[in-house]
Every structure is written in structure tokens, then in C-alpha cells.
């Protein structure tokens, strides 16, 4: 009895959570000038609109550039940080770990204000490279957490074997631990990319005139309810769901693969 009530409850709340997905898709397919649900006639008009409007394309390009740059930077620095945090043995490790995760936890408006003040002083507002750096900063916690988590599960005996067989520390790491880490790095790169792609508040503060895709949507929302936005939203959602799923599948498969090969713990 209780189970049935709970199941019904679960279905209702999940429906509430999925509401945006349920409504956005039909609304984006309308043929009319206005947002309407249910749409009276279906068309891909607003999707076409997106691909023919230069300002939407420009915003997407800016977002892509920043996203790719931020992903590369955060992957590089984040992986190095993760290795240091897991392998090295030093006093301030706890503090340092907290520091790397912090941009994820502290309210982004605080970070936005802080960066804005500093970037103004350094004349870095309205600079795409500075914006990329800021995005790398907020994307890095994902890389640090996922790569560090994966590295902790790595069976050190393999690396030790490589060392015994004559490899230097760097070479042993690159040939044993790094292949093991690659899927985690890949998964975290996807997360990092979308963290950058979604970032709005910090971008609003420090971008100056630069428009990323979320800023473009944001600017549109304050003016009118443009039917292009649902179409953009649906495309973005599809891309991120596909991207995240691929990352997750790769990560899981790797874990299973190494599980079967590693020696069972005593």
C-alpha cells in the first residue's frame, strides 16, 4: 500500500522535475510569431531562424571558443592539481583541496564581483582570453574532483611494477596511471566544457560587450519572449544530454574494465 503511494508520488514529482523538457520541445516547434502551447501548426521555423541570424551564430561561436579554451586549461591544470593532491604528501593538503573545490561552492556572484574588480584594475574586462581564464577557474573543480577520484582507485602495484622494471617516475606514470585516467579526464572535460558553456553570472559581470550564448539568451529575455529561445534551448539541452551521456558511458566502461583486471583486495 505505502509502496504504491510512494510510486505515484515519485512519478508526480519526477514529472514536475521534467516539466521544462516536456513543454519546451512542443513550444519550440511552433509556426507562429508567439510562444504557444500547444502549437497550432508545426514547423522548424525558429530553428532555421537561429541558423540564419548572425548574432545568434556569433554568440555560439564565442561560447564555443571560450568553452574549448576553458576546457583545455582546466583539464591541464586540474589534472596536475589532482595528481598533486592525491600523490604528494604535504601539510596544507586539506586546505588546498578545499581551495580547488571552492569556486564550485561559493556563490558565483561573489566570485563575479571579485573578478570584476580585479579585471577592471588590470584592464581585462571585455577580453576574451580573460573570460576564458575565468571560465577555466569555474570548470576546474569538476576536473579536480573526477580525476582525483579516479586516481585514488588506481591500483598502485602496476605503477610500482613499472618502476621496478626500470622506468623513471614520470615514464612509469605516463605508461600506467595515465591510460587509466584518460576516460575520467575525458568525462571531466565534457563536464568542464558545459560548465563553461552554461556560465552566466560571471560572464555578465566581466564580459563587457562580449556575448556568449547564455548572455545572448539573457539579453533576449529582458526584451521580449522571442520564439527562437525555446529552439535554442532544445538544441542546447540535446547537446548537453548527449555529451554528458557519452562522458558517463566512457567513465563507467573504464571502471568495469579495470575492475575485472585488477587483483581482488584481500
Amino acid at each position, binding site marked *: 500500500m505505502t*509502496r504504491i503511494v*510512494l510510486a505515484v*508520488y*515519485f512519478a508526480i*514529482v*519526477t514529472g*514536475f*522535475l*521534467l*516539466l*521544462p*523538457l516536456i*513543454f*519546451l520541445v512542443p*513550444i519550440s516547434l511552433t509556426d507562429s510569431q508567439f*510562444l504557444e*502551447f500547444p502549437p497550432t501548426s508545426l514547423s522548424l521555423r525558429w530553428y532555421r531562424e537561429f541558423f540564419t541570424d548572425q548574432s545568434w551564430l556569433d554568440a555560439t561561436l564565442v561560447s564555443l571558443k571560450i568553452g574549448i579554451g576553458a576546457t583545455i*586549461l582546466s583539464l591541464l*591544470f586540474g589534472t596536475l*592539481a589532482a595528481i598533486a593532491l592525491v600523490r604528494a604528501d604535504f601539510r596544507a593538503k586539506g586546505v588546498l583541496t578545499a*581551495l580547488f573545490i*571552492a*569556486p564550485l*561552492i*561559493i*556563490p*558565483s*556572484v*561573489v*566570485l563575479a*564581483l*571579485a*573578478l*570584476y*574588480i*580585479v579585471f577592471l584594475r588590470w584592464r581585462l574586462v571585455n577580453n576574451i582570453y580573460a573570460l576564458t*581564464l*575565468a571560465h*577555466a*577557474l569555474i570548470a*576546474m573543480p569538476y576536473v579536480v574532483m573526477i580525476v582525483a577520484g579516479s586516481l585514488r582507485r588506481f591500483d598502485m602495484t602496476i605503477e610500482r611494477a613499472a618502476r621496478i622494471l626500470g622506468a623513471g617516475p614520470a615514464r612509469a606514470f605516463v605508461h600506467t596511471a595515465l591510460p587509466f585516467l584518460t576516460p575520467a579526464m575525458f568525462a571531466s572535460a565534457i563536464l568542464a566544457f*558545459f560548465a563553461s*558553456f*552554461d556560465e*552566466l*553570472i560571471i560572464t*555578465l*559581470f566581466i564580459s563587457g560587450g562580449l556575448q556568449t550564448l*547564455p548572455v545572448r*539568451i*539573457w539579453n533576449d*529575455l529582458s526584451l521580449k519572449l522571442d520564439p527562437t*529561445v*525555446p529552439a535554442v*534551448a532544445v538544441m*542546447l*539541452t540535446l547537446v*548537453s*544530454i548527449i555529451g*554528458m551521456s557519452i562522458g558517463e558511458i566512457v567513465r563507467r566502461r573504464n571502471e568495469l574494465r579495470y575492475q575485472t583486471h585488477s587483483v581482488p583486495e584481500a
Partner: protein
Amino acid sequence: MLAAVLFVYPVFGVLTLTVHDGTSFTAEPVRQIYTSQLSIIVLQRTFVTAATVTAICLVMGYPMAYFMAGLAPRKRVMATYLILLPFWISILIRTYTWIILLGREGVLNKALSALGLTGEPIQLLYTPVAVHVGMVQILLPIVVLTCLTSILDVERDLVKAARSLGATPRQAFWKVVFPLSVSGAATGGIICFILCLGFYVTPTLLGGRTSILIANLIDLQVHKTLKWDLAAVMASALLLATFACLLFYWGLTRKRSEFATGGLAR
């Protein structure tokens, strides 16, 4: 290094701005906040909203998690993905959907009038209710997943023991599962509360002028009234509140892990 330059330095800069006006130390900005009616109201509103949203999330989320904990592992993974799906959609887009759903000409109002329940469209958008709905939709998955982890952590054998000693399922839940999982749920609540404090997009788009939160006020002071020192004080207050919650969180998790290993050692 990246973290140090781009994170510690700017954030520290904001903190010093509250007590230092560039040439000398001053308590003026802090005093202004204390005497400003608006800041006090907004601060209060932010904390009340955060507390309410957290409470709603916990009350809604715990039964969800309890249901999921009772599922077979395969089904549980599926349910988890269902809960996580909206989590992968950008906050901006999820908030945007609520504009379409709750607006005067929105889906909900149309449905209500079509059913003959309302004559006039009711004002849903730009009210505190809309802000709460939007925030709960965004944060609920986090709370459900933390509750799920803490319920799964409860030793199954304890429930079996309670049942064999004559407890009804209801008693077993309230005397065993609930007390042992409630502190884990509370940690999920703290995370939710911290995230609530920094919300910017949802109150701006769904709340209108009368329900702005602290993040919006910081934005206003930076971009409209140009009172940077006030913005810095508010940001510091936000940061301190976050740290206070984090300390509380660490205390809670530490106590819990001690309890799990010490009190329930097998």
C-alpha cells in the same frame, strides 16, 4: 597558481574592500549596510527564502529518496538518471520554462481558464511563489540524491533485526531508518541552503522587483547605483554565511562518520 591568482586574490580583495576604502581603514560601508533598510530587508528575504526552499526540498525529496532506496539496483540507476536529467539542462533554460508556464498568457493560466476554474488570469509570474517553484525545481535533484545516499548507508540488517523483534514496517522506518538517515539528509539540506543563498538567475527572471535576493542587490549596486563598497560588504556577508554553513556541514559529517564507525561497528 591559477587558483591562487584568479580566486584567492580577488576574493580577498572583496573582503578588504569592506573595511578599506583604498587609502585607509574604514567601517563606513559596514555601517551603511546596518542602517540601510533595503539591505536589511533583502538580506532577511534571502535567508528566509533559502530556509523555505531547503525545507520544501527536504520534505519533498526524502520520500522520493526512500522510494528509490527500495527499488532493485537496476531500476534505482534508471530512477537516478531520470532525476539527473533535468540537472543537465542549464539553469537559465529551466528558469525560462517557468516564464512560459506561469505567465499571464502562460500554459497554466490558459489551462485554468479552459477548465473554467478562473475568469481572469492569475498573477503567478513575478511573485515569491514563482521564485520558490523555480528554485525547488533546480535544487530538488541534489537533495534527493544526498538523501538517497544516506538512506542506502543505513545497514539493512538493522531493519531486519527490528522487524524480527516485532516492529511493524512503520515502526522500523521511524525508529531505525529515519533517525539513522536524518543527519545525512541534513547535510544535503545544508548544501541546498548554501546554493540558495547565491541564486541570481531565478529571482531575477521569476521574482520581479519585489522579490530580489542578495545576489541581485549586489548586481544592482555594481551596475546601477555604482556603490561598490556596499556590494563588497554584501558579498562578504554572503561569503561568511557560506563559510558558517560549511563549518556546520563539516561538523555534521565528522560526527556522522564517527557514529557510523564507532557506534555501529560490526
